[in-house]
């Protein structure tokens, strides 16, 4: 017990230090958590100047905390998912989201096939490089003040569209990849839709009941109920072969219809932050950086191609929102960052573990996210310089 406790303590402290450092430098915490996981994990680098860095092992405990990280990240995503806004703006959001998907998912598929990956591996790869990081982008939008400008419209709209698409994508892929032949795959997909459909129905029609269930004046009881129900639903989903991330997402959207949203934000968000940090840390923990060297070519191609892809599709989407050239360029730059969702997809792939999904794709994703989260943040920070250089100065 002492050893495990010590390891968890080291993990959490390392994460805290990494986050502080990232804040100091003005970059997103996600790459920082991953890097520190790589450093203190069992994989290389194993020692620095003779001092062993092999401090934390990939214990089951850390794995569970990481799983909870995925569950609560998606739960909060569903919670804040505004169905009303989506419906109100559905024309523009579908247009922008559609372009984004066609260009970037398409690019991902092309790259996968180009490098000779199997269809399943390619579909995972495409998902990893397609989806932008809501966490990194929203944070950058607020820091740069873009959140109050018109370019935030298409950026946030595209992110919302991606959320739905990823939910469907994860549900289908998890079910398909789990099964062997066509019949069991179809069965898995069927079960998935049944489970999620049932969950949505309970959430939609039972929102009054849900509202009453969570109503308690005690903060302690409140957080226990929310965390308990969410974990239970996620666990049940996983046991049935349904993606626990998607189940959490749907549960979140269901609860978003109740009056408890703000309270959950206040009280449960801190728990989510701890779990999410451990999730990113554990990604680093289980990554063998030497494998990244093996996919260097793929990485280089992916980084260049998908950065250009997002830039072009984003800039084009500005058209649907009647933005001028400068703001359209900002949309293009703003959608470049990749992060948490790519890692969730990679974790799912690692869980399936066939062929390249076991360690090549996860290693690739870590390298990819490390580069794209930093590159994306820098591009947004330097946006004005870039738009000026491209001849679209303000006025």
């Amino acid at each position, binding site marked *: 017990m002492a050893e495990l406790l010590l390891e968890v303590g080291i993990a959490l402290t390392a994460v805290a230090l990494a986050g502080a450092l990232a804040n100091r430098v003005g970059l997103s915490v996600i790459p920082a958590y991953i890097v520190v996981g790589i450093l203190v994990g069992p994989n290389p680098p194993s020692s620095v100047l003779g001092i062993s860095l092999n401090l934390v092992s990939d214990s089951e405990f850390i794995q569970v905390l990481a799983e909870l990280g995925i569950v609560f990240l998606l739960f909060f995503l569903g919670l804040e998912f505004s169905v009303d806004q989506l419906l109100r703006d559905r024309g523009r959001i579908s247009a922008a989201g559609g372009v984004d998907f066609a260009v970037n998912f398409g690019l991902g598929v092309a790259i996968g096939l180009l490098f000779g990956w199997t269809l399943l591996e390619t579909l995972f790869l495409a998902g990893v490089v397609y989806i932008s990081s809501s966490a990194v982008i929203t944070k950058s939008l607020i820091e740069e*003040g873009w959140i109050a400008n018109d370019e935030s419209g298409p950026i946030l709209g595209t992110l919302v569209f991606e959320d739905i698409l990823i939910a469907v994508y994860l549900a289908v892929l998890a079910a398909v990849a789990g099964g062997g032949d066509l019949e069991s795959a179809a069965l898995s997909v069927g079960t998935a839709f049944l489970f999620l459909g049932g969950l949505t129905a309970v959430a939609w029609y039972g929102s009054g009941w849900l509202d009453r269930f969570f109503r308690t004046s005690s903060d302690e009881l409140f957080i226990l109920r929310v965390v308990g129900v969410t974990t239970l639903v996620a666990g049940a989903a996983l046991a049935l072969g349904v993606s626990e991330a998607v189940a959490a997402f749907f549960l979140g959207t269901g609860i978003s219809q109740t009056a408890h949203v703000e309270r959950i934000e206040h009280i449960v968000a801190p728990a989510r932050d701890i779990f999410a940090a451990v999730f990113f840390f554990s990604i680093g923990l289980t990554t063998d950086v030497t494998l990244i060297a093996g996919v260097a070519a793929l990485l280089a191609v992916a980084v260049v191609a998908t950065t250009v892809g997002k830039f072009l599709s984003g800039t084009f989407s500005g058209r649907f929102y009647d933005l001028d050239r400068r703001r359209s360029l900002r949309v293009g730059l703003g959608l470049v960052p990749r992060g948490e969702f790519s890692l969730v997809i990679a974790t799912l792939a690692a869980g399936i573990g066939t062929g390249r999904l076991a360690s090549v794709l996860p290693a690739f994703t870590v390298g990819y996210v490390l580069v794209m989260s930093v590159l994306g943040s820098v591009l947004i920070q330097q946006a004005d310089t870039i738009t000026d250089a491209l001849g679209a100065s303000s006025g």
Partner: protein
Amino acid sequence: MTVYETDVPGVGKKFEVEIGGDERLVILLHHDGKREIFHKADSDADAERLFTLQGRLAREVGAILQGAYFQPVETDEVEVPLGEAIIEWIDVDETAELVDQTLGDANLRQRTGASIVAIQRGSDTVPNPGPDETIAAGDILVTLGTREELTKLEGLVEADDS
């Protein structure tokens, strides 16, 4: 004046307010209680962050803007100045000699010079009490008079130690 309201997923709500001419104010409400205020010179301009307010401060500034800012006042003594005379609320102790006397019998005006403007009894108020009004223990007399007159009156309604 139009107010545009949008949800910002993962952050909170955003309100854009036209404040005259082409100028706009953008207010971002974070889920954690933080409020950020931006200013746009016109609808095409980049927003400029003016300031950020955390939870409690945001609420207080909001109350000031609303004209509803309330600073609590010391309620031990509430004095209303009227030239030399003041209005004071005086408690009638249950052992005071005036308890169960009518105002007429108590003859407070003659004895002290102060007048009883109203009597507060629990949640009720008796305005302009007549001479038949009986003074009860626990009443609060709303009195008008100079300081000397009120001091004399206070002596009559204090706890009777004799």
